[in-house]
Structure formats: structure tokens, C-alpha cells
């Protein structure tokens, strides 16, 4: 059996934007997969066996002997191991730009974004300011294009998926508006295009269920934020 035809399993958890990145990549490539949902408070043997280092989702299992961890690493693997539309562009310089901006999203936007919802007062204001500044930098990268990848969805669109979906969800769940209604028009337009895309729609998490999840787990995430601040 060619490696592409071997079965694919994705270990995920409801609400994880990191696992969601991988689902979009698989959908873009037209790769069928079995979704295994973890209870992260009660991690399975399967997860612990295949991601002993981080014990986190997502984990992609391809055939009997391939386990890939870390969402960006998995997305690049899916791009290289399977035929179908390119996720990363062909040109090395464009690839470098896509990777650079994906790391920007992960390292400069992700943390202040989440922390602005799970903290309060001055600390919250600090994270919100940083998130908004970096949202502006990211927005500039759209530069009139339909997607970060141009006419079609690419690596950076997948990397930034949390913004298209989780932003509204978190604002509703936590009653804190990180982004005002008229702000970041290009990002808003992008989010609409993104969530209307066939591949993205296929694996879109149920919005109401996501909101309910974050409302229910608000104290847990606030606790995680407090612990992170103390480090």
C-alpha cells in the first residue's frame, strides 16, 4: 500500500484550535481521517504513547508507525506526504514568508490573545494592547488579498485560524471585547471568506458548543493563566 493510502487518525480535543489547523489541512488535501477526541483531563494511552514529550493534541497517526506532533509540523507533513493542492507555496522565498508569519502568529499573537480573555484589570489591558498591536501587523499582511495565501488558502491562513473562529466565541464566552465592531476590517473580511471555504466548513466546530465549553471551563482557564503569569 502506498504511504498515502495508509489510514490516518487524528488525536484531537474539542475546542482545540491547534488540532483544528490539522483538520483544515487534511480537508484541503482531501485526506480521509478518523477523529479521536481526547478528554484532556483524562489522557488516553494512545495519546501518551504517541506524544510522550508534550502529552498534547494534536497528534497525527499515519499508518502503523508514523506519529507526528505539533500542529505546524503536522501541517507541513500533510502538505509533503499527500498529493493535492499546495498548502505551502512552491517558491522558497514565499515559503519562508509563510513560515515567518505563522511563527509570528504563534509566538507574538497567540499568547496575548488568549491571556487577554483569561486575566483581569491592568494585566488584561496589557495583553489586550499587545494583541491588538500584533493584530494590526498581521492585518497588513493581507494587503488586499482574499487569503493570506493569495487566491487560495495557505499555511498562514491555517496558522491564523483561531482568529477567524475563536475570537468571536471568546468575546461572547468571556464578555470581553478584544476587538471592536468596526476594527480590523480586512481581518473580518478574511474571517468571513475563511469560514465560508469548503474545506474549513467541513470541520468547523459548532459555535454554540464552543461558547458553552469556554463558559463552563472559564475558571479552569483563568487558573492556567494565573499559573503561567507566575512562571
Amino acid at each position, binding site marked *: 500500500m502506498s504511504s498515502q493510502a495508509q489510514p490516518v487518525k487524528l488525536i484531537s480535543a474539542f475546542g482545540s484550535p491547534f488540532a483544528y489547523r490539522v483538520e483544515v489541512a487534511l480537508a484541503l488535501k482531501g485526506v480521509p481521517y478518523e477523529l479521536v477526541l481526547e478528554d484532556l483531563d483524562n489522557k488516553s494511552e494512545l495519546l501518551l504513547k504517541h506524544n510522550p*514529550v508534550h502529552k498534547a493534541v494534536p497528534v497525527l497517526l499515519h499508518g502503523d508507525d508514523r506519529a507526528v506532533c505539533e500542529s505546524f509540523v503536522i501541517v507541513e507533513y500533510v502538505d509533503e506526504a499527500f498529493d493535492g493542492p499546495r498548502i505551502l507555496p512552491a517558491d522558497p*522565498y514565499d515559503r519562508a514568508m509563510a513560515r515567518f508569519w505563522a511563527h509570528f502568529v504563534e509566538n507574538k499573537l497567540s499568547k496575548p490573545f488568549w491571556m487577554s480573555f483569561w486575566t483581569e484589570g491592568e494585566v488584561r489591558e496589557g495583553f489586550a494592547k499587545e494583541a491588538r498591536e500584533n493584530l494590526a501587523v498581521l492585518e497588513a499582511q493581507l494587503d488586499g488579498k482574499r487569503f493570506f495565501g493569495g487566491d487560495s488558502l495557505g499555511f498562514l491562513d491555517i496558522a491564523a485560524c483561531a482568529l477567524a473562529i475563536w475570537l468571536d466565541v471568546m468575546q461572547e464566552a468571556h464578555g470581553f471585547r478584544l476587538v471592536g465592531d468596526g476594527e480590523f476590517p480586512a481581518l473580518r473580511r478574511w474571517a468571513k471568506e475563511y469560514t465560508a471555504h469548503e474545506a474549513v466548513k467541513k470541520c468547523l466546530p459548532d459555535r454554540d458548543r464552543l461558547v458553552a465549553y469556554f463558559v463552563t471551563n472559564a475558571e479552569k482557564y483563568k487558573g492556567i493563566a494565573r499559573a503561567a503569569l507566575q512562571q
Partner: protein
Amino acid sequence: MAGGGRDEQLKLLGAWPSPFVHRVRVALHLKGLDYENVEQDLVNKSELLLASNPVHKKVPVLLHNGRPVCESLVIVQYLDESFAGTGQAILPADPYDRAIARFWAAYIEDKIFPSMSKALTATTDEVKTAATANILAALETLEGAFAELSRGKGFFAGDAPGYVDVALGGFVAWMRASDKL
């Protein structure tokens, strides 16, 4: 040393003590590429640096025919892909092997440098001890990865240095120096 055969101009905006710059230097040498080294003053940053890396204002920056590429591991992959026929391949050919290499490079990025930074700049013994424990734990994990990946050879990549070796290599000199501090 060749420059890739075309009219290529490679400039590295670097600073000699930086482990991140070191990664790029090693990659350039592995590929056998000529480049101009432009040493940066990180206290009084040059116009060129600020213009080439407006987002982070950091080294290393690679200028390839004037176009900037930033972030050390992004640059290493860029060199490997741009100069695919030249010198040594840094990432392996097989997609799964590439994924494993990228995983460990990301691990080194997340677990080694932040803890090293903390350990070196710690003002209390408590913070220093905690950071050091983190580094040691990460190094132990890397020892395990090395045993598995090197298969008895000298490098994570086997007979010759590859992506993970380059990612970690930058810190070797740092660690030796920090020992003395």
C-alpha cells in the same frame, strides 16, 4: 566555495555571540555558500537591520539579493530549499523524517533558549535553580532523541550534521560559556 552558480548575493546581518546567528552560519557553510558577514551593533541598531526586520528588529537576518529572510530556523530551511542542489542537504528527503527533524528543532526552540535566558538573567537562586532544572530535563529528553535518531552515528541526522544538529549546535558554545559564568 561556490555562490550557487547564479548571480547570488548573500549577506548575513549577525552578531558573533548569538547562537541563532551561529545556526545560519553553520547552514551557509554546510551548503558551501559564499556570503558577506555584516556584524551588527545590537545596542545601536543599524537602519539596514531595522528596515530588514521591522517586526522583531533582531539578528540573524539573511539578505538574498536584497530580500530579507528572518528567524534563524526559517532562514536555515530557506537556504536548504533555495540552494537545493548545492552542498549538503540539511533536512532529509523523506516527509516523515523531515517532520521528526522539525519536531525536535521546535522542541529545542521552546525548551532550551527560554530556560537558558532565564537561568543566565536570574536574580534569585530560586529562579536560577528552576530554570536550570528545566534545561537539564530538556537535555535529558534530547539525549533520548539523539540515541533514537543518530542510530549510533555522530549526529542527530546520522553521518553528517542536519537540521536538528544545526538547531542545537548554536547553543553548545553558549552552554560552555555559561558554565564559566
